[in-house]
């Protein structure tokens, strides 16, 4: 059947966050957009199994995560693309952050184990509760909590946000923070 207007709307609403998640997971905009496309195709093909009234976004994230995981296993032996194509792929790269700063953050993110990275991205950036993230990752809530904690600690170390002290002038996060934090 064709998509109900509300379903269509909910799918499109989820796309920006899905893309952000996919880019953060794969480290590559083109791959990420392919993942999002594949996710939407799967979702439409299986729309009958979606329960109206439940969280469309969480459902799509679940599909995308599973796709990424199976694709990741397949591509494991191929050379990972970590050479800066992330920034090039973004259409409107913001002027206020330099490419280098984002690259450093992305590099730090890529150093996290995959389980931790996805938990952190779901809870810390995508706005899901621990419970929702646990459902998406098909694991216990306590597992998600400990993954998020470990991810935060490690990322803070890598980015030198390890204390309440201020940042050194060359810390990549500094510009990101000042741009995002206080208008």
């Amino acid at each position, binding site marked *: *059947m*064709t*998509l*109900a*207007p*509300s*379903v*269509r*709307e909910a*799918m*499109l609403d989820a*796309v*920006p*966050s899905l*893309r*952000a*998640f996919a*880019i*953060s997971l794969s480290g590559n905009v083109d791959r990420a*957009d392919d993942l*999002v*496309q594949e996710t*939407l*195709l799967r979702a*439409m093909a299986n729309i009958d199994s979606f329960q*109206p*009234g439940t969280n469309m976004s969480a459902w799509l994230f679940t599909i995308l995560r599973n796709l990424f995981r199976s694709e990741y296993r397949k591509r494991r032996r191929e050379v990972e693309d970590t050479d800066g194509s992330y920034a090039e792929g*973004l*259409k*409107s790269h*913001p002027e206020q*952050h330099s490419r280098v700063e*984002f690259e450093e*953050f*992305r590099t730090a993110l890529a150093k996290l184990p995959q389980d931790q990275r996805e938990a*952190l*991205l779901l809870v*810390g*950036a*995508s706005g899901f509760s621990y419970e929702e993230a646990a459902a998406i990752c098909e694991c216990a809530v306590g597992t998600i909590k400990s993954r998020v*904690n470990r991810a*935060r*600690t490690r*990322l*803070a*170390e890598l*980015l030198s*946000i*390890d*204390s*309440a002290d201020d940042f050194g002038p060359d810390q990549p*996060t500094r510009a*990101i*923070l000042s*741009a*995002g*934090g206080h208008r």
Partner: protein
Amino acid sequence: MMHGDVQTRKGRGRLSREALVKLGKVLETYFDDVRKEGVPDRFKDLLDQYDARKAQGQPGQQAAERSEGGPTAPPFDERHDKGST
């Protein structure tokens, strides 16, 4: 020694509240950077194409399914209907 060990673990396992807030902002900003791009056309087109294909494939069923399936979904604004320009 024991004391140092405990200190290290404490330092590793627990971030200050301020550090957490900072980290949260970094993550948010990183994500927002992508979110700002909104929905690329290719994804809108994808849904349009799917709908068009489905409508074409099952010309008789569409109306019936719409009227049966419609009420289960919450009312939403109907902007999608003007999307054919």
